C-alpha cells in the first residue's frame, strides 16, 4: 500500500521597520507592526482559516483517514497569538482530531543549526517544543529544520536530542539515481529516520498549479494520484511538503486549489493510497538505505543549498556578527533582549540580503519588503548595532564571558543565601531570648555575606556597574 505524507510549513517573520542609523541608541523597538499585522491577517483570512477548515472537514469526512503534519515556527505562533488568535484555536481543533502531527523546529525559524560550536540550536528546539506542548498539549517527536536545512552533522545533533525522525529535501544532487519515495536514515546516526521531499510533485502543486504555460496544466487530483500510481510498485512513500500559503495565497482560492485538495482523499481511496503522518511512518516503516549528506542542503532555489541565506559577503558578515554576541545574550535575563534575540535570528532577514536574483529568478525579490539587498543589509545592521549596544550595556566592558559567568553565579548564590537568611530572621517569633541569640547569629552571618558581596561588587564596579536586577536583591 502506498502512502502520501502531507506536511505544511507555516512561518512569518517579524519584519523590521525602517530603522535609520540615527535611531541607533535612541529607539529600541524594531518591528513594523503595521506590515506584520496586515500580512498575517491577510494570510490568515485567505489561507490559514479556510485551509484549516477544509482539512478539518476532510478528516471528518474520511473518518480520520486523512492525515497531515504541520510545522509552525515559534515566531509565527507568536504573531498568530498577537494578531490572529482564532487561527490558534482552529489548530487546536485540528490537534484534537488526532490526525494531525505538529513537528518540532527551531523557535526562531533560525539558521542556528549552521552554528556548530554552540547549543543555540538545541536551546531553540527545546523552546519550540515547550511552546507546542503548552498550546496543543502535544510533544513533537519528528524534527524539521528551518527551510529543510540538513546535513549529516545536523542529523547527528537532532538524533542526540531524542528525535526519531526528521524531514528534509530530496535534493537531486544528494539522491542521484535514488528515489525520494522511501524512508531513509541518517548516515551519522542510523536511528534517525528521514523522509525526503518529492520536490517534483510538491512543486507541481505549489508553483505550477495555476501556471497556464505548464504542459500539464490543469493539475487535477485525478492526475496527481495517477502519477503516484504510475511509479514503480516498491516506492511507497510520497512526501508532499509545501508552504501552507500555497492554499489561498500563492494559489488563490479562485484557481480551485481548495477543491483540488478536497478531491485528493477520494481519488486516493480509489487507487488504494492512504495518508500518514511522519511520526506514524517512522514507527511503521524500516529505512531502505542511508543517505550521505556531507554538505548542507535545503529546499531553496535551484542549488538546494544554503546560498540563499549565506551566499554573499553581506549575509555571512551579518550572520557572524549576530552570533558573535550570543554568549553575552545568553547571560541576560531581560525578556525584551531575549525576545529581540529570537526575532533577529529569523532566516528571512538573511534571505532579503540575497543578491542572487540579480541574475536568476525574482523569487527573492517577490517576498522582500526591501527594494534592494543593500537596503535589507543596512537596515538589519542598524538594528543589530542597537541591539548589541543594549546587550553590552548589561555587562561591564573588558570582562570576558567566562569570568562574567562565574561572577554571575557567585552573585546568584549569595543572593539566595541572603534571601534565605532573611526568611529565617522573619520566622523567629519564639521566645525573646532564643530569638535574640538567633538574631545575633543571623546578623553575624548576614554581615559576613554582605562583606563578601561587597568585595565582589567592588571587583565589578572597578570595571562598571552591576546588573540592576541583582542590585535590588542586596
Amino acid at each position, binding site marked *: 500500500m502506498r502512502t502520501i505524507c502531507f506536511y505544511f510549513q507555516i512561518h512569518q517573520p517579524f519584519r523590521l521597520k525602517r530603522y*535609520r*542609523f*540615527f535611531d*541607533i541608541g535612541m529607539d529600541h523597538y524594531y518591528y513594523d507592526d503595521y506590515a506584520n499585522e496586515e500580512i498575517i491577517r491577510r494570510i490568515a483570512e485567505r489561507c490559514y482559516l479556510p485551509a484549516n477548515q477544509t482539512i478539518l472537514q476532510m478528516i471528518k469526512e474520511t473518518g480520520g483517514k486523512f492525515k497531515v503534519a504541520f510545522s509552525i515556527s515559534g515566531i509565527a505562533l507568536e504573531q498568530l497569538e498577537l494578531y490572529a488568535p482564532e487561527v490558534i484555536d482552529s489548530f487546536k481543533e485540528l490537534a484534537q482530531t488526532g490526525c494531525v502531527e505538529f513537528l518540532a523546529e527551531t523557535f526562531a525559524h533560525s539558521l542556528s543549526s549552521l552554528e556548530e560550536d554552540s547549543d543555540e540550536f538545541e536551546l531553540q528546539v527545546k523552546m519550540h517544543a515547550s511552546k507546542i506542548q503548552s498550546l496543543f498539549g502535544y510533544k513533537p517527536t519528528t524534527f524539521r529544520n528551518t527551510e529543510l536545512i540538513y546535513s549529516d552533522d545536523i542529523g547527528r545533533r537532532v538524533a542526540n536530542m531524542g528525535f526519531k525522525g526528521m524531514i528534509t529535501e530530496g535534493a537531486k544532487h544528494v539522491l542521484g539515481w535514488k528515489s525520494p519515495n522511501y524512508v531513509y536514515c541518517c548516515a551519522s546516526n542510523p536511528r534517525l529516520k528521514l523522509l525526503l521531499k518529492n520536490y517534483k510533485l510538491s512543486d507541481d502543486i505549489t508553483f505550477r498549479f495555476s501556471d497556464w504555460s505548464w504542459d500539464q496544466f490543469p493539475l487535477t487530483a485525478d492526475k496527481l494520484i495517477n502519477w503516484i500510481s504510475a511509479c514503480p510498485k516498491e516506492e511507497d512513500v510520497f512526501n508532499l511538503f509545501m508552504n501552507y500559503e500555497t492554499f489561498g495565497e500563492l494559489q488563490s482560492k479562485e484557481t480551485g486549489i481548495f477543491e483540488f485538495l478536497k478531491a485528493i482523499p477520494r481519488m486516493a481511496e480509489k487507487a488504494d493510497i492512504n495518508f500518514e503522518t511522519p511520526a506514524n511512518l517512522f514507527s511503521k516503516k524500516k529505512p531502505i538505505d542511508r543517505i550521505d549528506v556531507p554538505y548542507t542542503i535545503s529546499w531553496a532555489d535551484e542549488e538546494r543549498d544554503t546560498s540563499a541565506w549565506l551566499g*554573499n*559577503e*553581506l549575509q*555571512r*558578515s*551579518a550572520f557572524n556578527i549576530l552570533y558573535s554576541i550570543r554568549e553575552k545574550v545568553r547571560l541576560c535575563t531581560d525578556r525584551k533582549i531575549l525576545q529581540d534575540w529570537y526575532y533577529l535570528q529569523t532566516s528571512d532577514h538573511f534571505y532579503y540580503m540575497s*543578491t542572487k536574483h*540579480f541574475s536568476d529568478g525574482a523569487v527573492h525579490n517577490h517576498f522582500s519588503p526591501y*527594494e*534592494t539587498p*543593500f*537596503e535589507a*543589509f*543596512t537596515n538589519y*545592521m*542598524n538594528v543589530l*548595532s542597537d541591539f548589541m549596544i543594549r546587550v553590552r550595556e548589561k555587562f561591564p566592558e573588558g570582562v570576558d564571558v567566562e569570568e562574567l559567568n562565574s561572577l554571575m553565579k557567585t552573585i546568584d548564590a549569595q543572593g539566595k543565601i541572603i534571601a534565605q537568611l532573611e526568611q529565617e530572621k522573619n520566622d523567629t517569633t519564639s521566645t525573646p531570648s532564643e530569638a535574640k541569640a538567633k538574631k545575633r547569629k543571623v546578623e553575624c552571618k548576614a554581615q559576613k555575606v554582605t562583606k563578601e558581596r561587597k568585595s565582589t561588587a567592588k571587583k565589578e564596579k572597578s570595571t562598571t556597574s552591576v546588573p540592576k536586577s541583582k542590585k535590588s536583591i542586596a
Partner: protein
Amino acid sequence: MRALMFGWEFPPHILGGLGTASYGLTRGMSAQKDMQITFVLPKPWGDEDQSFLRIIAANKVPVVWRDPNWDYLNQELAGRMSPDEYYRMRACIQEDNNHIGTNGIGSIEFSGRYPDNLQEEIRNYDAVAGVVSRALDFDIIHSHDWLTYPAGVHAKYVSGKPLVIHVHATDFDRSRGNVNPTVYSIEKAGMDHADHIITVSNKTRDTVIDQYHIDPAKVTTVHNAVEPLSPEIQAIQPHHNTKDKVVTFLGRITMQKGPEYFVEAAHKVLQKTKNVRFVMAGSGDMMEKMISMVAYKNIGDRFHFTGFLKGTEVYEILKSSDVYIMPSVSEPFGISPLEAMQVGVPTIVSKQSGCAEILSNAIKVDYWDIDAMANAIYSIITYPAMYNYLKVEGKKEVDGIVWENAAWKVRDIYDRVLGLK
C-alpha cells in the same frame, strides 16, 4: 558602413560627459571591421586620437569661396586639414554664406566651447555641415546632442541620407523643467526630422516621448558604457592622508547635480559619527551657496571644497575616496559613477539618474531622500561587509559594461534605418 558624425567635444579637451561618450562610442564602433567614421568637430586641438576615426575640423572648412596663396593657406590650416581636402571642400560650396563672418581662407572661427553666442555657433556649424555633406561620401548621419542637430538635419536634406540623432541630454534635465524655448525648438526640430533617435537611458527616452511628442517606435535606448582604465590611471597611488573615511561628490556644482542634498546628508551623518570627511570636488554656479550652507550648518571642519579638478586629479580624489555619491536631480545617464566603480569605490546614485537603470551593485536613493542617502553613507563607512561587497562586485559589474556592446546596438539601429535588416 560609412558614418558621418557631428559632435561638439572630443577628448582630451572635454567640458562634460558628452566628449567622453562620443569618444567611447566611436572607439567601440571602430571594433566593427567594416565601420568607417568621419567625425566633425567645431575646433579640434590637433592632439585628438585619430587612430580609429577621421576628424574634420569645422573651423578649417571653407564656407565662402576664397583663393588664399599657398603659404598663407598652410599657415592657417595649421596641419588640422590638408590643402587637398581644403580645395575639395571649396569646390562644394553651393550656398551663399557671405552673411557669416569668415576669415582669410573662408572658414568660420569656432570656440568649441559653450559661449554666450552659442546660438550663432550652432547656426554656423549648420553652414559647415552643408559643405561637408556635399564633399564627402557616407551612408548615414549621426548627430551628438542638440548643438549638432541643425547640422545633422541640414546634412540629411543635402545628401538624402538618413539621420540618427543621439540624445545625451535634454533641456528638461538641465533646467529642472524650466526649458529655454529656443533650445526646445532646436531639439524638437532635430527629433522631428530624425529617422531614428538614440537616447542614453529609458528615463531620457520617456522625456523624448512625453515632452517632445515623438513616436515611441522611433526612439531606442542605448545605455552608455565606460572605457577601461588606462595604465597611467591605474598607476595613480591613492593618498589617504587621514584616518577618516572620505565621501566624495564630484561634478559641476549646479542645480542639476543636487549638491545641496549632499550637504544635508553630510550634516546628518556627522551628527552621529565623526570619523568621516566630505569632499565636494568641482566648481559651478552654486558653489558659493554651498560654502555658506556648510558654514551655516557648522560642519566646515569636516566638509571640504577642492575647486575645479583637472586631468589625473579627478582620479587621485576618486581613488582616495571610500564612498562616491551622485545625488543628481536629473541625470540623463551619468558616466562618473561607473568611473568610480572602476577604481573600486562603493557608489551611491540617485534613482533619477539614467545609469541607475543598468547598475545593480550600487546603492540607489531618491535625490530628495536625504535620510536614505545619509543612511547609505553611514552603512558603507560603518559596515565593512557592505564596503567590501560594493567595492568588489561593483568593479566586477562595471568591467562588463563595455562600449563594444553599446556600439553593436547603434549598428543595429543603422542597419534598421537603412533597411538592411
